[in-house]
């Protein structure tokens, strides 16, 4: 007998299919949404908000850097200790939760897909091992391709076809999803104790970050890639960096997308929307970034909104982490990944009493509120950099309630009133817009809507979140509570959360992309790559690619060559 489920009478928000709060039944059979069911188990969702499972476009949940954060912060692990239950493994951690807690807590918020946003290619196995250990969630990972010696050499020689061949190879070898760019050139320069602005020359390689970004955008669009390049722009966290961010968008304006989507997604844009010239006159330039996004259609953003409190910052942007460490004097570490990338980690406390933190807190929300089209903006906290993902419901409640924002602003540093725009913004998100920035937009920007994610149309994955709130609810506290723990979360047709408790922990799938490159081009690229492995890598080429065994539940997306 087929496994059937009927979610009856819920108020459904399914923005990809244009459903804006309609009373509807959702029929599920064998893990997919279907037209009708014959003998289903019934869930009564009368009067409750129903959405597709959440799709997180950017979070750091698995891999060497996340684990280094856990090792470095036993005090953070102690903050989130929850004993095992009949179905759950023991949990620990707040800003860097263990793999089990990551799966359970996302599922309890109604999320069913999370993108691990930075996978060092050489550490791909570690990343996949942790993703196997994250229960419930489907996931994917973006390999870091920008500070890579091969990439920079092809950008320098201008051979875009060979660059595309290398990009394809590294995505295939790491079982990755797309192209991640983090402080292009800057992370490599950090190996020389330096950093790079957009048009600085990268030491030794004699290319600029601008050339790397443009090159990788062109290479990415040579394939039918589901996602655009995913960029952490240069000069993260520096006052006045909003110009760099805008210039970065302009770089790829002329590049034509291979599919109906953006050509660049910039991530945790809050960290890149800063005005001023120093920490004293630091101010929000979210308006300038939002204006650009409003006027152009080739770029999307996620906000990277700040959650007040203690967190663990971690990024492949080593020089930025070092600057942060110099400000706080707390512990820090950094890491170099051979020819490919690097990283840095340091704990950080966002305080509403500090002017800079208060303005940062405002900027993330300003971006969401000032970008007019929610299909261009995604909700993130760059977990755990601006705050842990468990804070998403706090942001949702602020975006939905001007009153809530005003109440929060009252307790914060007064700089929010003269160096940020948030207190003067009246817009409030409705539930349809929340559904867009947490599932519809993110699924589309990742190209996953074509693979059953982020919507509830017939044939979609039966990933459903049922929130214990009425669509008329206006109380910010109740909204926050509802989004923290679902009434039900359904993953691939199975009830995984009921009344805020995890009741089943099926394994998730790992989604990976196979860019299909011409053999002749690949062979030519391999000559150079073999030489790199022979001369510089600590592993041999044969031992490098991730074996199929690391993806026990794989889902492949093929990306054919376009030009």
């Amino acid at each position: 007998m087929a496994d059937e489920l009927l979610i009856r009478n819920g108020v459904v928000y399914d923005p990809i299919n244009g459903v804006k709060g309609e009373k509807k039944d959702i029929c599920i059979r064998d893990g997919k949404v279907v037209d009708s069911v014959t003998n289903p188990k019934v869930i009564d969702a009368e009067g409750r908000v129903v959405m597709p499972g959440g799709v997180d476009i950017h979070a750091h949940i698995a891999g060497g850097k996340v684990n280094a954060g856990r090792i470095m912060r036993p005090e953070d692990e102690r903050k989130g200790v929850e004993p095992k239950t009949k179905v759950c493994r023991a949990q620990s951690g707040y800003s860097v939760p263990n793999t089990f807690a990551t799966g359970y807590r996302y599922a309890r918020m109604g999320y069913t897909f999370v993108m691990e946003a930075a996978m060092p290619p050489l550490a791909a196995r570690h990343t996949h091992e942790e993703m196997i250990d994250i229960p419930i969630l489907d996931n994917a990972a973006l390999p870091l391709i920008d500070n890579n010696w091969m990439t920079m050499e092809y950008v320098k020689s201008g051979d875009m076809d060979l660059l595309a061949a290398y990009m394809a190879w590294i995505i295939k070898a790491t079982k990755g999803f797309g192209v991640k760019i983090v402080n292009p050139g800057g992370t490599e320069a950090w190996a020389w104790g330096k950093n790079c602005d957009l048009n600085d020359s990268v030491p030794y390689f004699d290319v600029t970050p601008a050339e790397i970004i443009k090159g990788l955008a062109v290479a990415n669009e040579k394939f039918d890639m589901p996602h655009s390049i995913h960029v952490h722009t240069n000069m993260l966290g520096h006052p006045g960096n909003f110009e760099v961010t805008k210039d970065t968008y302009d770089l790829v304006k002329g590049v034509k997308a291979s599919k109906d989507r953006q050509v660049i997604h910039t991530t945790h844009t809050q960290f890149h929307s800063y005005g001023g010239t120093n920490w004293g006159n630091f101010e929000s330039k979210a308006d300038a970034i939002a204006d650009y996004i409003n006027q152009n259609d080739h770029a999307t953003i996620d906000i990277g909104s700040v959650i007040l409190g203690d967190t663990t910052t971690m990024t492949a942007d080593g020089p930025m982490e070092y600057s942060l460490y110099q400000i706080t004097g707390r512990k820090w570490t950094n890491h170099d990944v051979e020819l490919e990338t690097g990283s840095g980690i340091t704990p950080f406390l966002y305080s509403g009493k500090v002017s800079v933190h208060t303005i940062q807190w405002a900027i993330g929300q300003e971006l969401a509120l000032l970008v007019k089209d929610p299909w261009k903006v995604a909700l993130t906290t760059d977990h755990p950099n601006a705050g842990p993902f468990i804070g998403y419901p706090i942001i949702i409640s602020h975006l939905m309630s001007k009153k809530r924002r005003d109440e929060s602003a009252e307790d914060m540093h007064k700089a929010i009133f003269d160096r940020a725009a948030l207190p003067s913004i009246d817009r409030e998100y409705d539930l349809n817009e929340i559904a867009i920035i947490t599932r519809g937009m993110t699924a589309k920007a990742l190209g996953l809507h074509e693979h059953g994610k982020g919507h509830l149309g017939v044939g979609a994955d039966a990933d459903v979140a049922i929130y214990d709130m009425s669509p008329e609810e206006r109380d910010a506290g109740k909204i926050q509570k509802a989004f923290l723990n679902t009434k039900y979360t359904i993953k691939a047709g199975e009830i995984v959360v009921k009344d805020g408790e995890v009741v089943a922990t099926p394994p998730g799938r790992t989604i990976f992309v196979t860019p299909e490159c011409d053999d002749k081009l690949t062979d030519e690229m391999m000559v150079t790559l073999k030489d790199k492995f022979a001369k510089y890598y600590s592993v041999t080429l044969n031992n490098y690619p991730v074996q199929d065994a690391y993806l026990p539940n794989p889902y492949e997306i093929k990306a054919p060559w376009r030009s």
Partner: protein
Amino acid sequence: MQTITLKLKEAVRSGIAAVPVEVDALTPDQLFGKNEAELKAVKVWWGNREENTGDLFDVSVEGDAGNAEEVKIVFEGDLTRVKRIGDGMKAGEIEARGDVDMRCGAMMEGGKIVVKGNANCWAGREMRGGELIIEGDAEDNLCAMYRGEDKGMTGGKVTVNGNAGELVGQYMAGGEILIKGNADRLAGLNMRGGKITIESDAQWPGSDMTGGEIVVKGETEMTPSFKFVETATVDGVEYKKYLGDLAMGEKKAKGTLHVK
């Protein structure tokens, strides 16, 4: 005044494995107002099992108390595997008659603990207030922070009549520690406030300190990163006063180290 005597049953200690008992639930503030039957029913961890206090201890109660301050708990028997005595206690008094296991007086906020013997590691861990007296020796990490925390002891007073192990008062930010014997390596590591007095010898005290004060009355083996300032008199005795630790950078080197 009320005295609650808790004598560990011999059977608890006579098993093959010395499974520890954790008694953080048995503080004066938590036991105040309970009758004997209720006292015996308080749950404590014995290894990975939750047991009734009355099954692990012989319980006797004398007198009455009007508030938690008037409650005194006396632990008797072999306490070498009894952990977390007075952990988190807020008021009242505890007397432990014998050597105690780890974390005695950890996270303590108020009241007084007297240990009539030696204390194992982490006594007074991240202590906030109150008084802890150890009549014997204290092992490593006395009044230190737990791994990873950046704040150790912030208040209260600790006296050790014997010697203390390594890392006394690591990341200490406030309060007072008096060691009447020697302190092993790295007392006051990363200290930034409060005062540690060591009446005998100390090795490498105050490393990475950025604030607070350490006085060593016996022999001191110093790290080289302290700067001599002047000869200073503390309680009528002349000491050499140093500032440090310069390893943390000149601006941050605001800790004071007085040595003979």
